[in-house]
Every structure is written in C-alpha cells, then in structure tokens.
C-alpha cells in the first residue's frame, strides 16, 4: 500500500497510508468538537485536506491569486538569534529589510530579545530609535512585538508580587486571586506606557504576542491595555494568543460579562475584537504525541469557528509548535507548506 511522508508532532518523518492519515484527521477534528462543542469538519473537508497532504512535490503552494498576508511574530529573532543553526550576523533593522525585500513578507515585526513589555519599558527610548530607523528604511507595515507575560510580575520570576500558586498550595484562594489582579494592573500599565512611547515614532502597529500565557488574569490585563491603547494612540493592534484554551489560574475574571477562563479560540477572538484589537492571532498548540495530520485537523476546526465568529482579520499562528506545525527548531518545508495551504484553503483566513 502506498505510504506518504507525514510528520510526528516533533517533526520526525512518519510514513502513513491514506487511510491512516484520514483516521488521524478525523480524530483531530473530533477532539476539537468534543472539547469545545464546535462543528466537526465534514467528510468533504477531510478529503480536501487529505488531497493537500498527499499532493506530490516537496513543497506546495496556494493557487495563483489566492495568496494571503504573510506576517511574523517573535521580533526578528528568527533571523538574528533564536535559532543558533540558522541565525545571521545582521542587525534587527537589516533583518526587517531582508524580510521585506528578499523573503517577501507583507508585514514584519521587530522586538527585543527579552521579548516582554516589562523589560522593554526600561529601554523604551532605545527601542524607539531602532523603530524609527526601521520605519525610515522599509515600506511594509512594521509591528513591534512583545509578550504581556504576567508571570514575570511574580516573585518566582523576579517580580514584585508573591506567587499565586504559593497561595493556592496553602488553600488561600482569595489571596491567590487578589495578587493576580494587582499584577495584571501593573502589566496593563506597562503595556500602555510602552505603546504610547512607540506610537510617537511612526510605528505602524503593536503585536501583543502570547497573550494569556499565564492564564485568565494575563488575558484580562491585556484586554484592558488594548482598550486604552486604542483610545489614546493610532497604533494598529495585532493580538496573538498563547494557546487554544485560556487557563483558569484566577477563574473568576469576566470581560464584557463573559468568564475568560476556559475560553476557546473563537471566544478569545471575540473578546479581542470587543476590546478594540485589529488582528486576531489564533493559536492552537501542537500536541507532540500526535501526528501532524491530527494536529492540523484540530487547528483547522478551531480556526474555521474563529472565522465564523469574529469580524476583524484573523491570522492563525503557523510556526514552531502551533497550527499543526511540529515542535522543532527548523521546520521541515514539506509540512509547513502543506499545513499552510490547508489552513488557507479550508478556513479562508486573512493571513498567517
């Protein structure tokens, strides 16, 4: 029986028959349906993905004229540092130009290696200079990216506030909640402070990346920051998430009357839209114990529901360990192009 080269969630080759791929696709979509109570992919849609995954050619692409916006997050670190094996000795300003003129990105992002708003606050003026220089040299919209990262506001990570999990271990739920609310307020202020400085440089937009990585209080503080930044600056706001489900480390925080804990991507996107976000970056984490087809079908099921629910542009994250892409440093071309084509053709998303 013919076998096709797929990938494991960690990026290793996995040889599967059509039947095996179909079965994993069905299981993946079923996971999303069962957990998030959203519609499953139809038999035709599964066939469509199967066709894309088994298409010959090492790399594939969408049809002429069906291209979408290609953007990045994580700053320029993929060019300048994060991956030792492929980093180049170039400055961040140069990396943006490479992205624009050689790779063909439609927007590009710069950010600091210490990729959170809190450390950026102390060097905001220096960063403003880098932003200005980049904007002067490039044509495409430039975003500045950083993470809200509520975790670093707690003492366990060198922050000011006692760790909420220490309170939880002692059974002190009220204290655990109060400390998260206080830390989230500090975080909101830091994001707004940085945004206001950068808005004066001519920056096109801010990418608030990996939102809710520390749970619902992280999400709440970010939504509050979005409200203020939209009121007080003209920055475009892209809001990328940390995962397909908001962890309930507080579990009692509401936004627009909705409990944030446990929200799935379509519900997260709606909150971002209500707060004033301009682009929603849906994130569905890769389960490394499952195959890429399984992960891809699960991601597509979620993103389809996001597309139905929110009206702002949606850019699902499709990189290392998210969106059906394996969790490995240098992502194999076969899987990234197939997953990308499937995401675009099945969901009609606005960008990736």
């Amino acid at each position: 029986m013919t076998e096709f080269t797929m990938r494991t969630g960690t990026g290793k080759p996995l040889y599967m028959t059509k039947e095996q791929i179909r079965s994993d696709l069905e299981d993946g979509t079923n996971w999303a349906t069962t957990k998030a109570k959203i519609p499953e992919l139809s038999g035709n849609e599964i066939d469509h993905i199967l066709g894309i995954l088994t298409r010959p050619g090492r790399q594939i692409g969408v049809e002429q004229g069906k291209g979408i916006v290609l953007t990045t997050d994580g700053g320029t670190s993929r060019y300048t540092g994060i991956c030792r094996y492929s980093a180049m000795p170039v400055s961040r300003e140069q990396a943006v130009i490479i992205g624009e003129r050689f790779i063909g990105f439609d927007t590009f992002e710069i950010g600091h290696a210490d990729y959170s708003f809190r450390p950026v606050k102390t060097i905001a003026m220096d960063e403003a200079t880098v932003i200005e220089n980049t904007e002067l040299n490039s044509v495409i919209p430039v975003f500045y990216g950083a993470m809200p990262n509520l975790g670093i506001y707690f003492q366990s990570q060198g922050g000011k506030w006692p760790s909420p999990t220490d309170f939880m271990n002692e059974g002190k739920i009220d204290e655990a909640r109060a400390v998260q609310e206080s830390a989230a307020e500090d975080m909101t202020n830091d994001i707004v402070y940085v945004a206001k400085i950068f808005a004066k440089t001519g920056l096109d937009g801010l990418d608030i990346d990996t939102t809710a990585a520390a749970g619902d209080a992280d999400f709440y503080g970010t939504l509050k920051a979005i409200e203020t930044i939209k009121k007080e600056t003209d920055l475009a706001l892209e809001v990328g998430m940390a995962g397909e489900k908001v962890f309930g480390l507080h579990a009692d925080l509401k936004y627009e009357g909705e409990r944030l804990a446990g929200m799935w991507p379509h519900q997260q996107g709606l909150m971002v839209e209500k707060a004033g976000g301009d682009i929603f970056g849906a994130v569905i984490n890769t389960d490394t114990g499952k195959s890429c087809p399984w992960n891809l079908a699960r991601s597509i099921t979620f993103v389809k529901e996001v597309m139905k629910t929110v009206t702002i542009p949606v850019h699902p994250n499709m990189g290392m360990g998210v969106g059906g892409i394996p969790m490995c440093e240098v992502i194999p071309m076969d899987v990234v192009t197939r997953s990308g084509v499937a995401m675009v053709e099945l969901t009609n998303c606005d960008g990736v």
Partner: protein
Amino acid sequence: MSSEQLFEGIKNAIVDLDREECLKLAQEALDAGINPLEVIENGLKKGIQIVGTKYDDGELFIVDLMMAASAMKAAVELLELHISAELKQQARAGKIIIGTVEGDVHDIGKTIVSTLLAANGFEVIDLGTEVPSSRFVEKVKELKPDIVGMSALLTTTMPQMQEVIEALEKEDLRDSVKVMVGGAPVTQEFAEKIGADGYAKDAEKAVKWAKALTS
C-alpha cells in the same frame, strides 16, 4: 456519622474544594477510629478523581485543581500522623524525590503529581522548582529514594533532565534509582533518548508507572 457517610462527606469536600470541611471530616474519621488509609482510599482519592474528570471536561479550572490538591495534601498530612509506623511501612509504596528542573518555575503539574503519589502511599520528597542537577544528586545520596521524578514544561529546560541523568551516572548513582520524567512537552521518545526509565503523560499514569516499578 457512619464511616460511609464520612467517606462520602470527604469526597464531596474535595469536589467542593472545601479544605476546612475536608480537614474537619478527616479529624472526625480519626476520632471515630477509622483506619486513615481507608479515609484516603475511599474519600480523598475518589474526590480527586472526580475533580480530575471535571477538569478534563472543562467544568473546572487549574485554580480548582490546585485547591483540591491542596485540600487533599493537608488531609493526607493530618491522616499520616495517625498511621502507625508499622502500617506506614506496610502501605508504603516507595520513596520518590521529585522536582521541576533547573531554569523552570512551572510547578502546578509537578505538585499535582506529588500529591497524587503521596495519596497513593508513596513517601514523596518534593524539591520544588528550579532544582539544579547537583541537588538531585545530593538528595539521592542522602535519601536513597526508589524513584527520581523530574518535570519540565519548557522545551528549553527539557535538556536539563539529561544533565541530571548524566550527573547521577557520574556519581555511580544511576543504577540505584529509576528515573521518571514528565511535563507537557516531554514525550516517550524523548524519555528514551535521554535514558530515563519511564515517562508519564499525566498524574494518574505517573502513579501507575511508579507503582509498577516498585511493586
């Protein structure tokens, strides 16, 4: 209250995340002369299983899981004071030291694993988070556990697990213990690659694996 009613009450207290009620009923059970091991088995463990299922179904959140685990831990600590040394020895499933590896502060999953192991009769020494390999080695020398458990939640800290295994090898301690690894990014494949003896995807599997190893 009959012992059945007490077990039911303790189970419900865990499900309701009510630490005070759980401790109160555990004390009542002790006063009534009920075997503490039965209280753990028929009350606490049943409650935490329900909480785990509700968490998986999205009905409860991490904070609830942590509150239930903390109530259970407090009750186990209280009950343990009343288990005779002899019974303890009989019931003891094994000794395990556990910690989150250096550079990693994630402790929620590891704490749940510790709590469930303790509730299943293991003597658990929880070293906390950001535990350097030298401390794992030191504790293995000092406490002579059956199992060393390591947790990592970051792809960047997973290699620390291998460092600990190598440090144990260097000190000729590796053969004296079994090594179990876990945490969201860890896989069976990774566990094999670094030479760990076992991998568990969740707390329940960690208990099963630890029991199989020490029985």
